[in-house]
């Protein structure tokens, strides 16, 4: 794991894009015909959803590479990506709940899309908790990687839930399903969250790497031992 400053630059660029896209979405994008101003939530909700899926897909790739090739680098990236995915999934559920209240009349419904997303959040949060309870680094790496591969089965279920089952939730937002007037703030915020998460996942992986190195480092000589040695 390097010490270069590029993750800070990437995160800063992501935040700047998010400010730009959000100002555009809040102040300059037109109102939607049926949902009115409430539709402006889309400019943060959809980029969060896309990037949650992307980060968890990266976690899945790290898990497979960790199992096939080994190496602490993949385990560190896996931990970072799972944590980032949990943060984005929690944010996604909260934003969705806020959007559901004025449009559906309820804060939450056990609809297939919402249920599979909640399962995703709790499954990956559980994996983070699992890592805290395993002291052996080798077992921790293997168990986490296997758990991520199993939990990742839910990601395609989340994506296709609106097509496979009757759902209150609308179909996936794509350039074909979103009017041209709404494209730019949506895309700018999507790249904003993407750049922010690329930077943060790299920084979080460095943190995991340092903790792993500290686990394997020999303990510092105690004052008692040093004092005894000087006698």
């Amino acid at each position, binding site marked *: 794991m390097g010490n270069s400053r590029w993750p800070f630059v990437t*995160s800063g660029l992501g*935040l700047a894009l*998010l400010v730009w896209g*959000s100002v555009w979405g*809040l102040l300059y994008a037109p109102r939607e*015909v*049926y*949902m*009115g*101003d*409430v539709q*402006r*939530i889309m400019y*943060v*909700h959809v980029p*969060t959803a896309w990037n949650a899926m992307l980060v968890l897909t990266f976690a899945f790739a790290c898990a497979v590479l960790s199992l096939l090739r080994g190496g602490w680098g993949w385990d560190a990236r896996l931990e970072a990506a799972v944590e*980032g995915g949990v*943060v984005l999934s*929690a*944010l996604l559920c*909260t*934003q969705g709940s*806020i*959007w559901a*209240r*004025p*449009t559906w009349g309820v804060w939450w419904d056990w609809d297939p899309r919402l249920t599979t997303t909640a399962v995703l959040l709790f499954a990956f949060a559980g994996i983070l908790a699992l890592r805290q309870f395993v002291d052996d680094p080798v077992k921790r790496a293997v168990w986490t990687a296997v758990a991520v591969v199993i939990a990742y089965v839910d990601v395609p279920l989340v994506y296709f839930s609106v097509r496979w089952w009757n759902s209150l939730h609308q179909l996936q937002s794509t350039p074909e399903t979103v009017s041209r007037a709404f494209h730019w703030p949506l895309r700018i915020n999507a790249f904003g*969250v993407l750049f*922010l998460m690329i930077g*943060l996942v790299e*920084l*979080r992986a*460095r*943190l995991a790497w*340092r*903790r792993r*190195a*500290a686990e394997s*480092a020999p303990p*510092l000589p105690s004052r008692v031992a040093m004092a005894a040695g000087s006698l």
Partner: protein
Amino acid sequence: MRGVIEGGWEFVIAAYAVTAVVLLGYAFSVCWRLWRAPRHDGR
């Protein structure tokens, strides 16, 4: 009932505020923990 949602800015502001708090809070948390974590060379 026209099937059109009127108003709702409080929900929009809430969604953007939650997004800002979570993303900025997480960014700050990662930087803070990394800054506090000892390097393996003891620094």
